[in-house]
Each structure stands twice: as structure tokens, then as C-alpha cells.
């Protein structure tokens, strides 16, 4: 696995996993393992995705109609379920992103007021 010690990684804040999954799928359909990997890589290995928690999240998103799913073959010829973003999912992503950015800015202001000034 990765070289970094796992204990130093950040645990995901509750509710953010869904947003990150949706964000990852913006580049095209992907299977579960690929999504987990992509999140870790694009966070430069900072974020820890517990792979087991990923699947309930995927199922939740699927039930809400934000992602769709079908069986396909991976690059190394393994059968896997591929998830892709739906139109509703795209909208949801925009919503969540905006919300998250506002939240992050607000929290940033509180934690680091000097920067603002």
C-alpha cells in the first residue's frame, strides 16, 4: 500500500464521502476500487477512505438516483461494477460543492482571522 503511515492520514468528515465520490465520477465511470484509489490519490494520499464504507455510500447514492451502475470489465480484464454520474448527480455535486466551499471559508475565517485582515 502507500508509503505514508496510515495513522497520520485524515479521516473523512461525515457526509463528505458522498460528495467526493460524485466528484470523482465527473471524469467518467469508475468501479469501486478505482473510486477509492482516485480519492486517495487526488488528495495526495492525505485522505483515508475505508473501502468497506465506500460500498454502502455507493448504494445510497444509487438509490437516490445520483449515480447509475452497470457491470463492465476493468482495464486489467476483471469484471466489476462501474458507477457513473447521472444528471441529478451532477446537480447534487454542484450543490454540495457550493455548500462545502461556503462552510470551508467560514470555518477558515474563524480559525485563521488574520488572513482576512
Amino acid at each position: 500500500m502507500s508509503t505514508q503511515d496510515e495513522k497520520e492520514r485524515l479521516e473523512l468528515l461525515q457526509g463528505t464521502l458522498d460528495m467526493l465520490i460524485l466528484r470523482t465520477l465527473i471524469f467518467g465511470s469508475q468501479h469501486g476500487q478505482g473510486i477509492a484509489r482516485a480519492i486517495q490519490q487526488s488528495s495526495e494520499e492525505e485522505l483515508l477512505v475505508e473501502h468497506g464504507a465506500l460500498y454502502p455510500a455507493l448504494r445510497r447514492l444509487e438509490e437516490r438516483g445520483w449515480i447509475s451502475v452497470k457491470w463492465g470489465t476493468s482495464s486489467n480484464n476483471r469484471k466489476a461494477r462501474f458507477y457513473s454520474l447521472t444528471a441529478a448527480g451532477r446537480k447534487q455535486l454542484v450543490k454540495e460543492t457550493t455548500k462545502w466551499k461556503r462552510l470551508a471559508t467560514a470555518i477558515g475565517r474563524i480559525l485563521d482571522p488574520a488572513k482576512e485582515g
Partner: protein
Amino acid sequence: MFRRKRKASDFSSEIEAHLQLESELLREQGLTEEEARATARRSFGNVMHSEEHFYESARWLGWDHFWQDLRYGLRVLRKAPGFTAIAVLTIALGIGATTAIFSVVDATLLHPLPYGQPEQLVTLCDDLPGIGAHDVGMSQPEWQDLQRSGIFEHVSPAQFDENNLTGSSRPARVRILIVAPNYFALLGVKPQLGRAFDPEDHSPGLVLEVLISDGLWKRAFGADPNILDKSVRLDTDLYRIVGVMPAGFDAPGRTPEERNIEVWAATSFYGAPMPDQPPRNRRSLPTAIGRLKPGLTIAAAQSRLDALVASLQKEFPGDYPRQSAWTVRLLPLKESVVGNVRQSLILLLGAVGLVLLIGCVNVANLLLARGSARGREMAIRRALGAAHTRLTRQLLTESVLLSLIGGTAGLLVLFCTKGFLLRHVPESLPRLNDISISWGVLFFALGASLVAGVVFGLAPALHARRLDLNHMLKQEGRGTTGSGEQTRTRRILVITEFALSLVLMIAAGLLLRSFWDLLNVRLGFNAQNVMAVRTRLPDPNDPKADLYGSPAQEAPFLREVLWRGRTLPGVEEVALGDTASIPLDESLRNLKLISEGQFLLTLEGDIQNDQPSVVERSSVTPEYFHLLGIPLLRGRLFNDLDNDKAPQVTVVNEAFARAYWPNENPLGKRFKRNRAEAPWITVVGVIANARTQSLAQDGVPQIYLDLYQTGGKRLAIFLRGQLAAAIPDQVREQVQSVDPTLPVSVGQTLKETVSASLAERRFSMEMIALFALTALLLAGLGIYGVISYMVSERTHEIGIRIALGAERRSIVRMVLRQGLGLAIAGAAVGLIGALIVSQLMAGLLYGVRPTDPMTFAGVTGLLLGVAVLACYLPARRALRVDPLVALRHE
């Protein structure tokens, strides 16, 4: 319905794919195969948990639990066959009986009448409330006014008659309904063969076409497919058959006779044999039905009709005297067909529902008793982590399962006994043919079973929630561990049971007393050894063809029949009368026969001369009074001099004399039919009152005319003596040897007539009594169960008491006090309920007040007696408790 969104196996294969992808990646990064797999697994977390989580969150889980509960429940029920049998039997009885009664209610009260757009159909009732006359019928001009009023799509008068049908195998008396040509269009029904009348046919006289019923077609014509255009003779007139109505088509009448019509004839009610211009004040059309214009409610139609009636009264003041206050009432047609059985049916349904409820309470009690035996099982399951809800659900599943098995068993029995049961329903019940175990009825049974299962499963299930785990598990044995709370619930259940039973039993008791009073009412005439055989003289449309057109022409026939009747073996007395003179003849009661039954009369010298009164009348020969044992009080009976040439005379009953000439000598007084040209009729005799009109009513004013003076087409031949079974056939031979075209009915003894007049009351009384007995039995069993449970629970205590020298009597008293306490509490609640119910059923009672103290006291006593008996058995067992054994018991 409950499709699983994704299979669990699908999910595991996805996880498997994930793990493989991950480990391949790791291998590429230089880990060994084994390390790679382990790391992949580690970073995935708990696979099992994830799968389980997935599985549980599927909606399928509830279903899985349900199947588990069901299988478990079946196993539990199988393991206690005695309990299961009793519970299933109780429920089967309750559901079966309730469903049976509901199927009747469903067919008669709930289903719309089987005609096109039945909600627009109405009955028109003409009332003259000013003179206390109801449903007096309408005149032909009034009918025409209604037709043109714009309120109705169609209005059709209907007149019931009985005719002699010839042209088939042997002369038969058929029930015929004379209607307007628009009758079938009005009802929106079509014949199965041929066509209906032309609704636009307004020609004078009778349309010489008839439609016949399916029954008559099969019975008299052997279901001949070429029946159309055949001719039949009704009386002596020739009619062409143009259509056959479908099987199961019943005319919308109030009595079985009016519903069970065999021939329909049509007329516009004017032109020979009727007057060419029927007068407005002659109410010769006895009943009428109508179809409202589409979109018109009955209330709206009624207000427009009231306006029409008011304007007609203004226009024809001579025909509508103000005192009589003529009104026309609209009733939903269904109301007039089933209205008079509604109360009885609802009472029956209520009663059977109570039985079901009592059965439920009993099963609940059984379940509770078992619940305490199963307390340990429940406690262990709880301790192993079963949720409250899960246990409650388990218990509810079991009880619903039980009630569904019971309900199915009840339905099966009902299916098998359907024919038998239907034979016991009185024929007078409207829409008898419609009764069936339909989908609606099946749904009802299913629903009732489910509700019953929940009702009797709820108490034990709720109890399971409040189990004290520690207490339960500490108990060594598996036996009696009933908590105080449980005992309390069981007591409340027994009290409920007693209250419900008492309500039912008092209802039954009141009906029984009414029935008993009616059976033992002083009839005022002697019905022993009397038989009535009917015949009917032809009544052709052309008066010249009528062989019996006048009393003088009829007299020789009457004398001949009387003479021949007397020669028959065993016959002591013979009399003749019209059918209105048959005492308590329910079949023709309420029927508006042409020129028969009721009589509008005008008294001589009455200041309110234009205020006619309605009175029951019949025409008889002089022998009638002696044959029936009705004594003459004043004056004389008819004699040979009272013939068609002599002035008309009448014999009236005491009630009539008292009503019209109070404190005066009625002899020599005169009255006449309410028609200008009618002759005066002189009172020559007064006879005692007899309940020949109605068992329930005493002192109905009645007049008797001389059959030799009035003539009559529908005749009854009364015979008294030691009559052999062959008498009706012998009468037929004798009558047909005088005139071979005459139909003669089977004979009916007056005892049978009296009994038939009580058929409906007897039916509902018997049913309620049966239900009440069942309730009593169930309540007895219930209290027996609770008290014996209590005794076995207190064996230890009783043993100590006996060991300490308690008297046997005081032990018995203690047990009885417990039981009677419950019974008395139940009775007190029940008495309040019974007071309410008895008020509601006041209309069904005769001779007893709804609060009859005798019935209330007697029934309460009976119920308490049963309670004492049910407690006495366990009390005796308590006495046999051996103190040594009892003390060693724990």
C-alpha cells in the same frame, strides 16, 4: 411487490472484485501475493459487517423475519394441538357465522339493486296524512301529470294481480304485474329472449303482449326456444308472448309475491276494460316507481314534486279536499325493497359480531394463559438479544396465523353448508337470489380474521413487552408465573366477555318474549283444523265474455262449491270468502290487489262527507263466522235474503263500530264506498274483534260484506274438520268438475298461515337465541378458565389455609367470591349496554317494553348462575387440595 433491489450474492461478488483489483495494484507496487491480499482486506475493513449491513438495510428483511415468525408460529401451534384446536374452532365459529350473516347483509343492503343506474330509481308513495291513510296509490291523470312534470325520465304504475294462465299444460295461477309500457326501459333491463314493451305505446286498453319470467318459461313451457309470438290465455284473453326475462330478474317489490312476478302485461291505464277517461280522484293505480332525470337528487326532485302537488291541488280543489292533505313521497327504490328488513339484519350482524368478539376474548384469555407458560421462552429470547418489537411481532404473527386458520376453516364450513343454510332463510327476505359468497364477502372474512387476530393477540403481545427478565429467568420451573398485571388483564377480559354476553342475551330474551307473546296472543278466532284452498275466477277484459261478471252470475258457482265441499270426507263446515278474508295471510298483506283489501268509505250523514276513511274489508259467505268461531255480538249475520237484488248489508267488527259510532247503536247505520254512484251499505251485525289482520295488532277496524252481493274473483274455500292430506286434491277435482278452466292452489292450514306470518320474526329470534347461547357458553368457559387458573395459582396458599384449619366452606366462598365478583362487574357493564341496545331494537319488539324488568332480571340471573357453576368446579378442586402436597409444591 417486495422485489429485492440487489441480491446479496451480487454484492459479495462486487466486494470480491474490489479486493482483487486492490491486491493486483498492490502487487504491481511490489508486494507479495499474500501481503497484497492481506493489505487489501485490511484497508477494506470488516467484510462480513459490510455484507450484513447491506443485507439488513434491504427492505427484504421484514419479509424474512415474517417468514421466520410464520414458520416458528406454525411449529408452536403444532406443538400444542389441544390449544390450537380450541382456538381454531372458536375462531372458525365466529368468522363463519359472521361471514354468513354478512353475505346476507352484503347482498341485500350493500349491493345496489340489479337495474341500470339504480341510484336514480325511486318509489312514489301517495299519502293522505289528513285522514291517516298512507300509500293509497295514484290516479291515471296524476300519473300523466308526473310523466310530463320534467322531474322523471319515466314513471310506471304497477298493479299486482293473479290470473289464470291457460295455453300451457294445465291451468295455473300466475302472478302478474300490470305496468306501463315504459316499465322495462325505466328499470334499464332487457329480456334474455325477444323484446320488451314499446315504451312509446300509449294506445288505449291493454297492450296484448306479455313478457314472462324465466321460471315460468321453464316450468310451464319447458324452456321452449320458439316461445316468442306464441299465444297464451290470461283468464280468457289472448296475449302474445314477446319476451322472456333473464333468470334472477326480480321485480322491485316489497313482498315476495310482488317480487316474484311471472307475467308482465302493459297498459296506459285507460280505455276498456278501464274507463276511457279515468277520473282524477280514483286512485286505482296502487303503486308506482320512477326514474329521476339524470343529475337530479331525490331531495331536489322531492321539492319540485311538492310544488307540482301544490299547484295540482289548487287547480282541482274538488278532487283534492284540503283535509286529506295529499302528498307524494319519493323513496329510494332500494329503501322500499329492503327497508323493512334492515333493522333485523343489522341486529343480526351486530349479534354475530358480538359472538365473534366474545370468541376473540376467549382466545385472548387462552393465549394469555399460554403466554405465562411461555414467559420463560420469551425471557430467554430477550436475554439473547431479541428486540421488543421482534417478540411482539412474533406473538402477533402467531395470533393472526391462528385466526387466519380459523377463518379459513370457518369459510370452508360455510361453503359446504351454504345450500343448507340458504334453505333456512325465510323466503320473504328480499334479494334472496343475490346472496352469494362473493369477493366482497371473502375480503370481509379475511379482514375480520385479521382484525380478530390482532384483537386477541394484542393483550398477550403487549404483555410480552413488559416481561421482567430477572424475575422470569430466576424462576426455576416453567410453570405458573403469571404476574399480577397479567391476572388483571385476564379479569378485564372476563368482565368484557360477561358484559357482551349479557347484552346479547338480553336482546335474545326480549325477542323471545315478543315471539312468545305473539304465539300465545288470543287470536279471537279458532285456527284449529281449518284449511284454506284458493281458486280464482277468470276476469276477462271484455265484460261480455265474463261468465262470472255479476254476483248473480257467480252465485250458482259459489253454492255448488259449498255443497260439493260439504260432501268431502271429514269435512264438517265449509265457507267461502275472497282472499282478503284469509286470516293472517301474510302473502297478500300489503299487496294492492285490484278492488280488494282496502276500502275508502263515506259514512252517511257525516258532516265531513268528503273525508273518506280507509278500512280493511273482505267479502265472505254467511258460514265464515261460525267456521272461524268469531262470535256475533249484536244484530244478525248474512242470510239467504241478502242477495244481489236486496240492499247491500255488512257485518262490522266491534273495533269498527266503536271507532265510527262510539256510544251509539251501530245497527242500521249506513256507509258507502267513496264513489258517488256506489250504493249505501247497511250495518246489520257486529262481531267480536279477531286478529285476522295482524297478530301484533288488536282491534283493527274491519268490515265484512256478503260475497253473494259483492262477488269476488280471488276466492278462498275454507274447510273445517278432520281433514286428510288428500283434501286439497279432492277440492281441486270438485272445483274443476264445476269449471275445468279454474286453477286450484295447494291447501294451507290456518296453523301454517299463522306460523308463516311469523316466519321472519322466528328467523331472527332463532338466530339471535343461537348466538346468545354460544355467547353464554363462551363466557362460561372464559370464567371457568380464569377461576381454575386462579385456583391452581393459589394452590400453595390454599394448602396453607387448610393446614391452618380454614373451613372448607370459607375456601369455597373465597373462590366463588372471586368469580362472582368478575361476573357481577361484567353484568353491571352489560346492563348499561343492554339498555342502549334494547332501545335501538324497540321496533322489533311486541308486547314487552325495551326495559322489561322480567327479561333483564331473568337473563342476568341466568348468566350469574352459569358463572356460579363455572366457578364451582374449580372451587371443588380447591377443596381437594392436600395441604402436604401443596406445601411441598414449591
